[in-house]
Every structure is written in structure tokens, then in C-alpha cells.
């Protein structure tokens, strides 16, 4: 049986993984950076402002995330963000520093560096006043240690600095500096520079011998780059490109004209942030006073036989020829914005949808991952029934 998976984020990865595990011949079409690559490296089942849910990961999910280099602990991990908040998550990028495993009263050092998005003093003060840090008596301290090696690094984005640390001599240099610092702290909280490859952080941590890790940063973050590296290492066979059309008889056409036939298709193309779903109100395309034709404001980027929905209900044609009232679509007018909840509601037989939007848990990634696993399995089951009936 042949399964085509469209989308290279966490949901697509999970679907490809599940389908491959079920013995399918998987064609995996991967486009550009998606929400997962922009993700902070902290995965959850529920939005992080809430207390993390205690629901256990399925063994299949756990297997995949471990293979991708993520750390799943039994309790929540507590991660510092680069703006000074401590947030819980169920699953973390291995390069991030988990505050939960540090002893009560631990002294955490932040290096003072001149960088627009890293003011160690202000960050230490802000993190130190976070309720979690207060409860666990964690002490954040800015320390004088120069970890810029060359001039001009002040102006480099985090991602570029992370890439520099992939070089072994640079990461050894950093490790040596951290190790030589006296007095040695209980842990190091570092700017997000610990490599774009999953092994870099482990190498530095091994050399220093103390807990160390990054704070979550704004996108584009090295966490996203590490995800991509891990994914590519795990699934070397991919088709790079964008899908243009999925036909009723399950042929998948790419923009460059390649065509794949499939027994089942998984669409994991994301929501509105990165291109899976497009928002095009009638007013946006026409210069006239009134559009000549009125089309739905939201559409899937791929031409396929699917129905879009919002939180499980079909999307309705708005009561205005100009498109929906924007104030009804997004934050802060709505706590759970429509923009984040629009996705494929149902599709023709043989097409399955996956992603955080389909899981109705926007940007929690674990929800996306599990929906990917389900979609991959369902696609295989469909393909199996199809071959039986043949």
C-alpha cells in the first residue's frame, strides 16, 4: 500500500512514522519551514498557561519523540524563556534547561553578553521573580564571563550563533570557558546558541559536566533547526516541494508537475500561520466596490475535496459580501481565535488530516503529533481495506 503524506512538521512526521511502522510505502512531501520549525522546542498537550495535563504519552508517541531527540519526563519540565517567564511543558528539546530537575535553592548562572535579545541582569531579575522560581527558591545570577569569541557577534541573530557552535572547536572553547568559571554554579542558563544539530548541546554538556541548557527564544530559534536535522536524519527519504492538487482518485500533484498515486493521503499542511490554510476575504482581491463573485474567506492551500471547519463545526459563508468581520476572527477579541482553529473538518474517503488545528489544540505540538499518528494509522487501515476489496 502506498501512502502520500503532505507536510514536514511534527504532524506530518508522525503520520509518516506511523504509516511506515504499519508497513506502508510512504511518499513524504515536505515544503518549507512550518510551525514546528518556528516552534520553541517545548511541546504540550494543552496550552502552557494552564497547568500541564498529567495524561501520559502513548508508547508510540514516546518512541517517536525520543527518536527525534526530545526528552519526555514523567512530570512537567519547567523551562525559562528569553523574556523572563518560567513555563511548564510535557516534552522538551534536549538543549533546553529543565529547571525541574535542579535541586531546591539551586544557583543558576546566566552569562553577561552584549546581545539585543539577552540582557543577563534583567533576565535574571525577571526569572527570579517568577512564581515558580520563588516557590523553588531558585537563584538566577548574571555572571561576568565572555562567551562571544569574535567581534561583531553582538549583532548576529541567535540562530547564526547557534550554528557557529556546531563547530567542534567552538563548542569545546565554550565548554572550557564555562568549566573554568569559578565559583561553579549549579547550572548554566545560556542564550539559545547550543547548536543547530541535536548533538551539539549534548557534547557541550558532557564536557562541562554540569546541567546547562538554553532558554526558549523567539523564532527563528535553534530548536526548530534541530527538529529539522533530527527529522531528516530519521527519515532520509523525502520529496522536497509543494503540493498543488490532490484529486478525487487520490493522485497528488506537486507544483513542479510530479504526480504520485496513492491508496490514501494524509494532509498535514498546517493552519493559517504557515500556509496550509489561506485567508482571502472577497475584498482583498478586487479593486471594485463589490466583488463580482463571493467565495469563502478561508480555503485550503491545496486543491482537494475537503471541508474546512472551525472547532469541529463547518465554516459558514459570512453574512457580508466583503468577507467576515475581522474583529470576530482573532485575539484579543476572542480568547480562542478563529484564526487558530480553522482546519480540515472532513474530507473524501482516503484523505486524512492531521495537525494541531485538527486536534483542536492550537500550537501544543503534542496534540499535533498524536493527530499525525492517528491519521497515519487511519490512512494505512483505509489502504488495507482498499486492497482487500480489490
Amino acid at each position: 500500500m502506498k501512502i502520500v503524506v503532505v507536510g514536514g512538521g511534527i504532524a506530518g512526521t508522525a503520520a509518516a512514522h506511523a504509516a511506515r511502522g504499519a508497513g506502508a510505502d510512504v511518499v513524504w512531501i515536505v515544503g518549507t519551514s512550518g510551525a514546528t520549525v518556528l516552534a520553541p522546542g517545548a511541546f504540550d498537550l494543552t496550552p502552557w498557561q494552564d497547568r500541564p495535563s498529567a495524561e501520559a504519552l502513548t508508547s508510540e508517541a514516546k518512541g517517536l519523540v525520543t527518536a527525534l531527540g526530545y526528552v519526555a519526563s514523567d512530570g512537567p519540565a519547567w523551562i525559562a524563556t528569553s523574556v523572563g517567564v518560567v513555563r511548564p511543558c510535557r516534552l522538551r528539546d534536549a538543549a533546553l534547561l529543565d529547571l525541574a530537575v535542579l535541586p531546591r535553592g539551586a544557583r543558576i548562572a546566566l552569562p553577561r553578553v552584549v546581545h539585543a535579545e539577552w540582557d543577563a541582569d534583567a533576565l535574571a531579575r525577571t526569572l527570579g521573580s517568577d512564581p515558580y522560581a520563588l516557590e523553588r527558591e531558585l537563584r538566577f545570577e548574571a555572571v561576568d564571563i565572555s562567551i562571544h569569541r569574535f567581534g561583531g557577534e553582538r549583532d548576529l541573530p541567535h540562530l547564526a550563533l547557534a550554528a557557529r557552535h556546531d563547530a567542534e572547536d567552538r563548542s569545546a572553547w565554550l565548554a572550557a570557558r564555562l568549566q573554568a568559571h569559578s565559583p561553579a554554579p549549579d547550572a548554566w542558563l545560556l542564550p539559545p546558541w547550543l547548536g543547530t544539530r541535536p548533538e551539539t548541546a549534548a557534547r557541550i554538556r558532557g564536557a562541562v559536566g554540569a546541567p546547562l541548557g538554553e532558554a526558549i527564544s523567539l523564532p527563528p530559534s535553534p530548536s526548530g533547526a534541530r527538529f529539522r536535522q533530527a527529522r531528516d536524519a530519521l527519515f532520509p527519504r523525502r520529496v522536497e516541494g509543494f503540493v498543488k492538487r490532490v484529486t478525487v482518485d487520490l493522485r497528488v500533484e506537486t507544483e513542479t508537475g510530479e504526480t504520485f498515486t496513492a491508496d490514501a493521503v494524509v494532509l498535514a499542511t498546517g493552519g493559517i500561520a504557515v500556509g496550509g490554510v489561506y485567508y482571502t476575504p472577497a475584498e482583498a482581491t478586487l479593486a471594485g466596490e463589490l466583488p463580482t463573485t463571493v467565495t469563502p474567506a478561508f480555503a485550503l492551500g491545496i486543491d482537494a475535496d475537503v471541508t474546512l471547519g472551525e472547532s469541529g463545526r463547518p465554516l459558514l459563508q459570512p453574512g457580508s459580501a466583503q468577507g467576515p468581520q475581522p474583529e470576530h476572527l482573532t485575539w484579543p477579541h476572542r480568547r480562542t481565535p478563529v484564526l487558530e482553529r480553522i482546519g480540515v473538518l472532513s474530507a473524501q474517503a482516503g484523505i486524512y488530516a492531521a495537525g494541531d488545528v485538527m486536534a483542536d489544540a492550537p500550537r501544543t505540538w503534542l496534540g499535533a503529533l498524536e493527530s499525525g499518528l492517528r491519521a497515519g494509522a487511519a490512512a494505512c487501515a483505509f489502504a488495507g481495506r482498499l486492497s482487500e476489496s480489490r
Partner: protein
Amino acid sequence: MPFDDRPSTRSVDVVVIGGGVNGTGVARDLALRGLSVALFERNDLAFGASGNSSGMIHGGARYLTQNPNVTAESCRDSGYIQQIAPFLLHRIPFLVPVKAGAKGRVLIELIDAFFELYDRYQPLKRGERHTRLSAQDLAKLEPGLRGSLVGGVTFDEWGVDGSRLCVLNALDAKEHGAKVFVHTSVESIHKRPPGMAGAGRYVVVARNLLGGGIERAEAKVVVNASGAWGPLTAALGHVASSRVRVRPGKGVHVAFDRRLSNYAIMAESIDGRQIFLEPWQNMSVIGTTDDDYYGDLDDVCATSDEVRYLVQGIARVFPEIRTARAIGTWAGVRPTLHTYGPLEDKLSREHMIVDHAEDGAPDIYSMIGGKLASYRSFSQEMSDRIARDLAPSRHCTTHERTLPGGDRPLDPLLLSETHELTPVAARRLVFRHGSRAEAILGRIAARPRECTVVCPCEPVLEAEVRHVVREEDAFTVDDVARRTRLGLGACGGMRCAARCGQIIAEERGLPPQEGLRQARRFLHTQAKRRVAALNPDQARQESLALQVMDATLGRGSRDDEDR
């Protein structure tokens, strides 16, 4: 924060209520004449109409036929503003495209003649004379123009940052002894009864809305320069609101992520009003509406149908506007002189001073109406009236003495070389601060990390954020945005709001969590303003902005969002 109710009465000559361009203008004028002044502003400087205008000190060409004296005064005063703050202005040449057809051929003659008349006033503000253009000229100058055109006419105006104008006036007033209290709302105005010490003087009691403290000032004269809030303020002085009647007119603008056109372009809305697309600072802006407003003045927000009305009108001559990426909206309420009946556009843009002696409140004055372009002469008029009794020998000098930073020109390119800044960062810094940019960059010598860029869109340096908190009375992230344009660019503050909050907390000695709360509040307000202009590109940006907040800051609880 603990409630501070210890009264501290300061004695001044004049209390000014309102931190818009008229209030700060009067405070500066009086302070320069040697009078002692206390200014109270309920929100922030330039919070109302002054900071939410079209950003032009235009000559008021559209008032030429109805109120030629408004045009003359605007042009004259615009000329003075150029002299006292040359760094804060940028030229905005306008095109008036005229549609082809029999009507158009007549219309262009009329427009040509009209601007011939306007040309008489142009020298007052160093403006260029108008030019008549053929359809071919138009197509060459502005390739984005569409439709069948018979030709067009140019005219010349000046752009200004209205918020900076207010801040600089307030700053100069402070440097000449005035006290400025922002986020401080006047709660009562009482006259000391006869027989008491200081009889006949006014005691103004105000509450600091951030810290909760009470400010008391005693003054001979009270000036109500609170714009659309005017009737509310008058009532505090026991003057009937009907004596300070304004007809509040809401105007909205939509900002786009870059300069979309070479020139500003005039267009006509569906109901025949004049609207425009202007390149302004580093973006393009479309405006404006003029509608009677009945809502809350502290929370004025553009709505999506106002945005659609503007986009529709602009798209008739400049269709690309439909696919351009909107990055925000702003809205303000004009305190127009009150008349019942006429359409909003036909209302007089003149100003007047109400002497409340007739209302049993001598020495209380209300300033009503006015325009950004003529704030200085309106302020002079008001100050002359007050100085007649208090400082008869001192004359107005606000048209001769430069605003802070206007004393000498600075070369941004030179600055960028000596301070390792990008030329853009240096140029923007000099645009906002004039020669004071040197003082800001001077901070970097002592603390090199202040050279880092906090807001990459604008860009804004850490040193500038700290400077406006220390020297320009910025207390919140929103205040910093008004003074530096931090967070008002394409990314909507998602890369800089939290950092800015951190800096404010540090500078003001506030708990760090308060800095984060302020950042969330700012992002919340900005999102509310942006969403009215939500178009396809912006919907994605919005989704991404949410992702960033969810990753690092959190959206916070409802408590954070409420003011």
C-alpha cells in the same frame, strides 16, 4: 503598590490640563515667559488627537474656500514649526489625480486654479508651488496609479511626528521650570473662598493613575486644554459642560508596512470626501474618516468597516492597496467647534478660547478646536491672554526659540560611523531627537550594551528607550512606543515589547513582573488596533505573533489586559 495619599500642594501661576499639542504648547509658552506651570495629563502626552492625527502640519488647503484664515494661519505657523524643530519634519508632496471625461477636463481647470490660490500661502511654510501634470507625467511619477486619468496637480505639504511634537514641547517647558504630570487625572478644581489665605486661587487635585498618589497644585489661572475631554474637564471646575461644547469627530488611519508610493495621493471616498494615501516616516498611511463619536475617549479604536471604507476609496486610484500588508490602525477624536446640523466635513476648523469669567469662574479658560499645524499660534493667543495680567513685560518667543534638539543639525551618517550604528538607526534617531541624539549615544560610552537594538523594525536602541523613560516621562511600554515608535512596525511589538517592559521596570524600580504585565498589555492593545485591518498577509502575521507570545510570554490573564 501602596496608596499614597499624602497631599503635597505646590503653588504655581498656571495649571494646564491636557498634554496634547495645545496643552504642552501653552505650558512651553508660559514657561518661556518665566511663569511657573504645572501640567496634568490623564493618559499620556499626545494620547488623543495630537498623537493620532494624519501626521502633517498641512496648510489646510481644504479649508481654503470655507475658512481662508484657517489656511493662512496654518501655513504661517507651519513655517514657524519648521524653524523651531527642523529635524522633526519631512516633505510630503501630494498628487491629485483627475479622472478622464468631460467632467474631469473641467475639474482639472478648477483644481489648477484652486492651487494657484493656495500657492499664495506656500511661501509661508517653505512649500513648493503647485504643478499641473499630464496623464503621462502621472504614470511616470507614480506607476501605481490606475484608471483613466486626464492629468493631475501637485501640491506640497510637511509631515511631522505629532507625538514627538507634544513631547518636545513638554520637555522644553520642563527645562524652563514647568512640572509635567502624566497619567495624572484631575479630579477637582476648587476656588479658595474669600477670607482664606490665597483667596480666589484655584486648588487642582489630581490622582496618579499608575501609582495612586495625589497631586495638589494651587494656581492663579487654570487652562483647560483637554481637547475632546474638554467638557468633562470644565465640569470639574463647576462650569457647565455646554459652555465648552465640542463636536467630537473620530478619524481613523491605517498604516502599511512600507512606503507604497513615491508621493501622497488624493482620492475620493464613496460619499465624495477627500481621503489620501501618504508615505509617512517609514511606512504608508491612509486616512481619514470624520464621524461623530459618542464612545469612550480613553478607548478609541478603528473598526473594520471604517478600514474598508478607506481602502475602497484609495483602491479606485491605487488598487495595490488591497494586497498591501496593513500593520495597524490608529484613531483619534478631533475636538471640533460645536455646531448642530452640518456634516462633519463642513465643520469649522477654527479655534476659540472660552473665558469662564462669565460662568462665575474667572481665570479659568478653555481652549477648543484648533489644528496641529496652528497649535503654536493658538498657544500664543492663550498665553498672551494669561500673560496680560501675570507677566505683561514678557513676550512670546515660541516661534524663535528652537525646541529641544533643534539648535543645530546633526549628520546621521557621521553619527553612524562614530557610534557603530546602522545609518538607518542613526537617521531615525536624529529624526526623533535632533541634536539630543548625541546625548542618547553618549550613554553608550558608559554602557556599551545600550547600543543593542531593542526594536528591529523601527529601529530603536536600548539607549533611546532608557533615555525616554528618564528624560521624557515615559512610564509604560505604550508611552515608549509613542515617543520612539517602538513596537509599531511590521512585527507589532512581538520582538521588543517584553524587553521594553523589562527596561522600564529596571529604570523605574518596579517589580520585573510589572514589566512583563505592561508588555502583555501593550501587545493586547496593539493586536486590538491591528485586527481591524486584518488582511491575508496580516492574518498570517497575527497567527505568528500569537505563536511567539505563546512560546515566550504567555497571553496573560484578563487582569493583565484591563487598564
